[in-house]
């Protein structure tokens, strides 16, 4: 089953690098503008977490949360009307005409991704399917000022992570 959803060469994914995120919420605004989403539903939301270590030092971390388009998506399994399905691009696709607004998907989603607006039917991040088809990054990645969100093929992202690791190693060896 997992082989079915493997991305074809050239298909992009979204890298969410928590170490770079500073919680500016630019991704949320970019998403709203791109998809014309009114205040209320948040297809993307950056949440802040405050932690205190044993020494009493306080630090913040941030997590941009959208639909993760899971490979083994629990929402697809529980949707009683088959409104959710996996498409050929490896994205979890919503057919809103089938949605009855029961909320089952929200109850099982580990990321709180399903959103509900005025019509009380589910809506969520569609992965900027059309932008990606035109070889554009997702809107959230394009407007992220800190490089926390990056849109590239898995091969490119892997290379990016490895080269920055190598640069750091070289700097330490100096």
């Amino acid at each position: 089953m997992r082989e079915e959803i493997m991305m074809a060469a050239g298909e992009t994914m979204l890298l969410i690098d928590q170490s770079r995120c500073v919680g500016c919420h630019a991704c949320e605004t970019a998403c709203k503008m791109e998809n014309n989403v009114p205040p209320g539903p948040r297809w993307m939301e950056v949440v802040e977490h405050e932690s205190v270590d044993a020494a009493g030092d306080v630090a913040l971390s941030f997590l941009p949360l959208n639909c993760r388009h899971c490979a083994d998506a629990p929402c697809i399994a529980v949707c009683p009307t088959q409104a959710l399905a996996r498409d050929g691009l490896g994205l979890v696709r919503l057919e809103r005409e089938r949605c009855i607004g029961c909320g089952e998907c929200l109850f099982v989603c580990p990321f709180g991704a399903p959103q509900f607006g005025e019509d009380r039917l589910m809506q969520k991040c569609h992965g900027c399917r059309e932008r990606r088809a035109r070889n554009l990054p997702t809107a959230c990645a394009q407007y992220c000022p800190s490089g926390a969100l990056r849109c590239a093929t898995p091969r490119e992202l892997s290379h990016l992570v490895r080269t920055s690791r190598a640069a750091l190693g070289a700097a330490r060896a100096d």
Partner: protein
Amino acid sequence: MQTPEVWSRHTELVLMWGCNASAAGIHQEIGYLYDAMERGARLIVVDPIVTAVASKAHLHLRPRPSTDAALALGMINHIVSRNLHDQDYLERHTQGFSQLMEEAGQWTLERTREVTGVPEGLIAQAAEEYATHRSLLECGYGHQRYTNGHRTQQAISALAAVCGHMGQPGAHCNFMEVGAAYTGFLNSARVQNPPGADIKKTRLISISHFGPALRAAQDPPIKGIIKWRGSLITQQPDARGMIEAVKGLDFLVSIDQFLTDDTDWSDLVLPACTIFEQWGVHPSYRHQYLQLQVPVLEPQHESMPDIDFWAELARRMGYEAYFPREWTGLDWLRLLLPDDFPLEQAMHPHGPVRLPERFCPPVPNWDGNFQTPSGKIELYSGVYAERAQRFPGEWDPVPRYVPSAESPDGDPERAARYPLLVVSQHPATRTHSQFGNLPYIQEIEGPATAMLHPDDAAARGIAEHDRIRIYNDRADSHVLAHLTRKVLPGTVELDSGRWIKTGGNVNLLIHPRAAGPRDVGDGVMAEYDMQLDGHTIPYFNLLVEVEKA
């Protein structure tokens, strides 16, 4: 200024002081900072608040608000005591090191810890790391928002000089500068007062002391104001005094896109064009590029480009010859910019254009020369000593820690009644008072909220999201409480830029006082030197008490 574009490629350590690069000007710095860190650069942040960028730092020093000068002096003393200072640089490019050390020498680690609250080991480690790397000192405005802000900046700059971390790629002391916009590049005078027009100047009014100045001004008194591209009331430190001053005017005109605190008091509100409907020019902090803003829409409804309004007003006041009716914003830009500036290259899709290096070299002070009478960094400032003869003020030639006037150290009596010190962040979601009225921003920000340390909240019986009243003898402000260790005990954080009419404005609580070094009195002046006299506003010079509402 050495821009992030330059230092990020060379620096070994960034010391970020009073600068929340993760919220203010985020597009200009954070990516470059990460580039430097991925090359292996260290990051030390000095900020009383746990910001996002402080959470990315290798070391985070959290001085009690307004004590930063003590911290810088303590670091200097530790560096010199360990012989980590740059004796060669000090001899060749500075003067007054011995006078500096007479002051800094008193700041042992123990005394520095007592005043700042920063552990001795952390002060020592930060000082040693800063001194022994190719270090870049990046200053924001945070530490400067007190009545001792000018002294603090003096001390921090001295820290860089003592280590010789100046004028090298990746090593410099940066303060907030808007590219070359203020250094002679833009011909502002040719637009404000075209050659031949000879529009008479009467006097100067301090923008940081505008409310008191407005009431004090005589000969002639100020009876009318036309305000544009800024908030007259919301962002003034003396918001209450500003409202009183505005009530005393015969005529107030606001040119705006929204109905703000200012428009509530205006006799006339003129609809302003957005940036999409008019020509403009974009210099900014932390880079040295210029981009021309090209209108992409016709002015909507009854709005007109700002320059058209001012030119029409000038024509009706008898200056027709100098403000040609057929001129567009682009013609005015030609006048504003140097004659040899490649205008077309600075427009989409070509721009931006780097400003000429004669105004802003990539590595300023590379030759060790400085624009002082001695040509050196004046650790003992002869200019200040001389200025003291001409104007009242706090003209200490060497940096000292003097408590901020309204702080627990500066006014213990007041602090007994109002024990909490207020600091205001610039949130990522707003630019000063802009955007806070937009539903899309309100959705992210939520209602007006103040940060309280859990210990301070517990002592007052305040729980998370309780409605609280922040007050002193001047005013009060009602907001929700957020209990968080992001703020130090004894500190309240209330964002800047909240509108008065929608609640949570912090400036209602502030005493109208301009900070030094020059004492600007009532704010009406015959002459003023921006570089020497200082023009900071002590926004965080503010003590309050908090109670459950």
